[in-house]
């Protein structure tokens, strides 16, 4: 267990009256949505329902066509609140693993001995202590995504936005990385979008299904127990069936 990163009192995120249109089509219309602080919230939905767009609106990287208010623990300032982990690892091929992990600090000119130390111990914690000086091209897909996870953690932001970060991995690697992520980001506010109901059931404190056009959020699903969950619980299986049903209806 790594304990040098603490996400104490991570704020929740409030979306109020959020509308977004893209080339004339209304993707969201007066959407209200609360993301609870310090928990994993999973958004489930088919491709093209606006899952990634919602993440981009929260991260502040998408502004055109957007109206409404997004508050982080009551503060209306997106800057410095979020870290982003995407489906692609987005490692820069010319930087070593260590420098990729330090990418944010390098970009802001904040590299320090202490940060380098934190980066190295985090890399060790995810089992990559031996390849800090390797180039990304030499790593496997699972290793690269672990580097991306550490880079996300190094940002030390209270809100972590995850855009299907595990979906390109094989089943076994995916489960390992999900466990690692659940362990390392404990206490942070996480918004994970995925199209895999089992992933949502493993990781989410709260699960929503996105439906319709303009997109609406379904009723919250609250799986029992603490994530990362084992999926052998019959209650979980029943929830899986219900979620699948909802998803099939929306397609």
């Amino acid at each position, binding site marked *: 267990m790594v304990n040098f990163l603490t996400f104490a009192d991570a704020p929740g995120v409030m979306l109020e009256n959020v509308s977004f249109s893209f080339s004339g089509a209304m993707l969201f219309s007066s959407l209200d949505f609360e993301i609870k602080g310090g928990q994993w919230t999973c958004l489930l939905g088919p491709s093209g329902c606006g899952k990634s767009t919602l993440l981009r609106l929260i991260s502040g990287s998408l502004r055109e066509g957007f109206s409404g208010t997004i508050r982080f623990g009551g503060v209306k300032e997106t*800057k410095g609140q979020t870290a*982003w982990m*995407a489906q692609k690892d987005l490692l*820069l091929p*010319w930087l070593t693993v260590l420098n990729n992990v330090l990418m*944010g600090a390098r*970009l*802001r000119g904040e590299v320090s001995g202490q940060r380098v130390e934190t980066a190295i111990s985090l890399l060790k914690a995810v089992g990559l202590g031996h390849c800090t000086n390797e180039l990304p091209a030499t790593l496997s897909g699972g290793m690269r995504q672990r580097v991306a996870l550490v880079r996300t953690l190094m940002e030390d932001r209270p809100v972590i936005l995850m855009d299907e970060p595990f979906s390109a991995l094989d089943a076994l690697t995916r489960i390992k990385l999900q466990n690692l992520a659940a362990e390392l980001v404990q206490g942070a506010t996480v918004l994970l979008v995925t199209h895999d109901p089992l992933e949502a059931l493993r990781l989410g404190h709260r699960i929503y299904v996105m439906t319709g056009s303009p997109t609406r959020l379904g009723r919250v699903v609250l799986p029992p127990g603490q994530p990362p969950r084992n999926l052998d619980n019959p209650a979980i299986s029943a929830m899986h069936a219900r979620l699948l049903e909802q998803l099939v209806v929306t397609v």
Partner: protein
Amino acid sequence: MIFLRLSVISIGLILIWQVVVYLTGSPPYILPGPLPVAKALIAKWETLWFHAWITIAEIVAGLVIGSLLGAASALIMMASRSLKRWLLPVFVISQAVPVFALAPLLVLWLGYGMGSKITMAVLIIFFPVTAAFYDGLRRTEPEWLELGRVMNASPSAILYHVRIPAALPAFASGLRVATAVAPIGAIVGEWVGSSAGLGFYMLHANARMQTDLMFAALALLVTVALILYFLVDWMMKKIVYWQIEE
């Protein structure tokens, strides 16, 4: 491996050359065989080498100045949209004017020395480098840029840490093309008016019907151009060290 292939190709070409000379029975002042050319090369080695150095200096200076100017213009166009709108047409127009047509003017303005030849080489090199680098700068993976913005990076930090390194492979291919065409600029410049250089020496030999010397100068020029190309290629591979060879 590459040297083996290169030697095989060279020997093959020389053999074909000899066969053509033998079959056509051309007199040596029209088409000398490989042997007389080799003899001329050895006999006039010092003179040829002197002229070769002048041409090498012109090409290298042209390459350095041309690629620096090219990189700078690509960065300027990247940094400012409004400047780009004014610069891009100027670059395109500059390429529409044939360099060969400019050569006499450049000699008139800059004289018989190296200046006019270097300028010719720069004019030829500049555009492929600018175009390739600018293209590379513009085509940065959009998600890298987005990640940088979520990380609160300033546009200049993103340019320096993400866009420029990401565009280096494109810059390298532009520079490779430029290196291949750079000798044209120097040689054309020397033809139009000069007192030294391989181009000058070839014209000089031509006027005296010393065809074997012309061929010797040509062989030297080809060798120099090839060495320069491989040198630049090797340097570029060092600079874009992360690119994996197919």
